[in-house]
């Protein structure tokens, strides 16, 4: 895995930090919004209070002011201005809309008779000025500034509405306060972030410490220290996990011990089986030897001639004893190779042609009997190979036995040997071609399976237990060679064995093969044995 590893602690810390930061930001925003609204409301209330405060003295003095209302209030308005910092301007407007007094900043202008007093033309404002109830509104100044406007009527003790006070109040102060609280929130956030980093890492470590301990324990068990146990006292799922893991490790240990024991038992059993096979083979072979020996002496006339009928019977006995011997040997070989198949067979330099000669020789009487022609064709000189002579003899014996068994009377078996390189490796190719019944295409691979017989009824017709070819494959593969079958159904089969020329560690150049006596003949090196 090329993925970058992230520690669990970092992951948990990130989650905690994310949650903390999110809630911090949210609460800061909520606080700022609420504060903004309350500050704004305070300002507006203060503006209304202020407006009525300004109107108060005017009501008492209104009778003296007269409808022209000039000059008297300017000092008072100037003083009153100081009481509210948000006030932009104050105007006193008569009910017809004519501005009587206007105060902007620190300057106060009183419009007397004959002066070109401004006239209010805004319809909303005119209506508010004409009304007898105080009114408020948020309006936009021509400069674009948003302002709070309070219109308060000045009504005398007789209920006569003389003027209205129009006060415009700025939100600048409110905005300033809002800015300040925003800045403060940001500052707290930044400090909070630093704190969050530290707090979240600490919190996360509290959780991951146990997970880390669990991981270390598991790793030790994984490294093969099966007796290790994980100790976590977190009283939570991690402790449960650790306990579950310990139980698992216990079971694993128990299973492994059980397996070891079972394996030991199997080994003992295997040894017992091998001993049994050795004993059985001894017990079978000794009587077979006596039978075979006497039968051969009898039929060869060494014990005096037998009557024809008796001789024929003895010949049949002899043939069957030989078959029985082969089957016994097959069984012994199989049990042996089953045990040592995986091992590298002990090798020595072997003259393959001499082995083939030897094996073919043992078939003499059988060939004679069924009138089968067995030829060994050697196309070229065959070099010495590193082989296990006993096993290789078994390979060719079984293959020839098979070929002869399936070749009808009067047929022929041809053994061909030639040098052949496969997969960049020198070697020898031996093919055994019979003129027998052949093998169906689908069976070509399966013939090498143990106990496999192409045709179950062939067991009766041809004998054998289906072990021979399985043994052949085992041995050839142990020699790192290969074996396969080719066939045309009805016109015989070819079994091909390829054996590599394995170089032993300190291999000297191969000496000329003693098989040179079998001169390199092109095509027909006829070596029919005891035909």
């Amino acid at each position, binding site marked *: 895995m090329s993925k970058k590893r992230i520690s669990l602690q970092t992951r948990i810390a990130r989650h905690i930090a994310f949650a903390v930061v999110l809630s911090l930001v949210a609460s800061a925003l909520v606080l700022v919004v609420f504060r903004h609204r309350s500050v704004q409301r305070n300002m507006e209330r203060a503006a209304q209070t202020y407006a009525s405060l300004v109107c108060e003295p005017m009501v008492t003095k209104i009778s003296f002011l007269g409808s022209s209302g000039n000059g008297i209030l300017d000092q008072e308005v100037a003083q009153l201005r100081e009481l509210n910092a948000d006030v932009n301007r104050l105007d006193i407007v008569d009910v017809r809309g004519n501005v009587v007094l206007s105060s902007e900043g620190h300057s106060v202008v009183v419009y007397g008779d004959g002066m070109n007093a401004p006239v209010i033309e805004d319809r909303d404002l005119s209506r508010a000025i004409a009304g007898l109830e105080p009114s408020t509104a948020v309006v936009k100044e021509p400069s674009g500034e948003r302002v709070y406007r309070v219109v308060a009527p000045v009504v005398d003790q007789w209920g006569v509405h003389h003027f209205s006070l129009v006060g415009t109040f700025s939100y600048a102060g409110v905005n300033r306060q809002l800015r300040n609280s925003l800045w403060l929130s940001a500052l707290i956030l930044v400090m909070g972030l630093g704190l969050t980093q530290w707090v979240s890492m600490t919190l996360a470590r509290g959780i991951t410490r146990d997970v880390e301990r669990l991981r270390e324990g598991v790793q030790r068990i994984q490294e093969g220290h099966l007796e290790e146990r994980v100790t976590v006292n977190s009283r939570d799922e991690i402790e449960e996990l650790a306990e579950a893991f310990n139980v698992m490790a216990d079971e694993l240990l128990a299973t492994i011990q059980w397996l070891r024991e079972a394996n030991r038992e199997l080994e003992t059993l295997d040894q017992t089986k091998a001993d049994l096979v050795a004993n059985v083979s001894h017990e079978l072979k000794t*009587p*077979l030897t006596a039978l075979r020996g006497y039968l051969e002496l009898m039929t060869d006339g060494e014990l005096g001639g037998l009557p024809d009928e008796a001789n024929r019977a003895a010949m049949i006995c002899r043939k069957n004893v030989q078959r029985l011997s082969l089957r016994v040997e097959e069984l012994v070989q199989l049990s042996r190779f089953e045990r040592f198949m995986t091992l590298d067979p002990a090798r020595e330099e072997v003259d393959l042609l001499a082995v083939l000669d030897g094996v073919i020789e043992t078939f003499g009487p059988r060939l004679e009997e069924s009138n089968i022609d067995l030829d060994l064709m050697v196309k070229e000189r065959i070099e010495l190979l590193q082989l296990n002579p006993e096993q290789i003899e078994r390979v060719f014996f079984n293959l020839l036995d098979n070929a002869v068994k399936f070749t009808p009377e009067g047929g022929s078996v041809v053994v061909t040997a030639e040098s052949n390189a496969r997969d960049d490796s020198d070697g020898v190719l031996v093919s055994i071609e019979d003129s027998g019944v052949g093998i169906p295409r689908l069976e070509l691979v399966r013939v090498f399976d143990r106990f496999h017989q192409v045709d179950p009824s062939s067991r009766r017709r041809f004998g054998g237990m289906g072990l021979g070819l399985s043994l052949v494959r085992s041995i050839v593969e142990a020699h790192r060679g290969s074996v396969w079958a080719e066939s045309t159904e009805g016109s015989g089969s070819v079994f091909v064995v390829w054996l590599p020329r394995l170089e032993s560690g300190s291999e000297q150049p191969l000496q000329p093969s003693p098989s040179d006596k079998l001169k390199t003949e092109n095509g027909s090196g006829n070596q029919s044995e005891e035909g």
Partner: protein
Amino acid sequence: MARVFVIDDEPDMVDLLATILKADGFEVETDTDGRSALARMLADPPDLVLLDLMMPDLDGMELLKILRLDTKGADIPVLVVSARSGHQDQLGTLQLGANAYICKPFSPRELVRQVRQLLGSTDGEPRG
């Protein structure tokens, strides 16, 4: 005529071996017990010994070891007859001092061939 000593615990095997060898003109002595056979062989060494490996009491391997330790028995050619056909078994027997090895079940012809070969090689006569 060469004298061959046959040792096997199976009377039938002894009989067969003796029959084969006698038919081929050898002089044959037999014994079915390893100990008495050893004593007889050391008293009057034969020209060749046919020895079975698996025998009760004193088995062929032990007998061969003792025979080879004695000056009289050290040079007698020994042909081992055994049911064990394993390469390792053969090699072990040869290392103990046997001269040749023949596996059961064998053909009488093969036995006679091996006996002749062994006698020929110790006599120094080349044989075909």
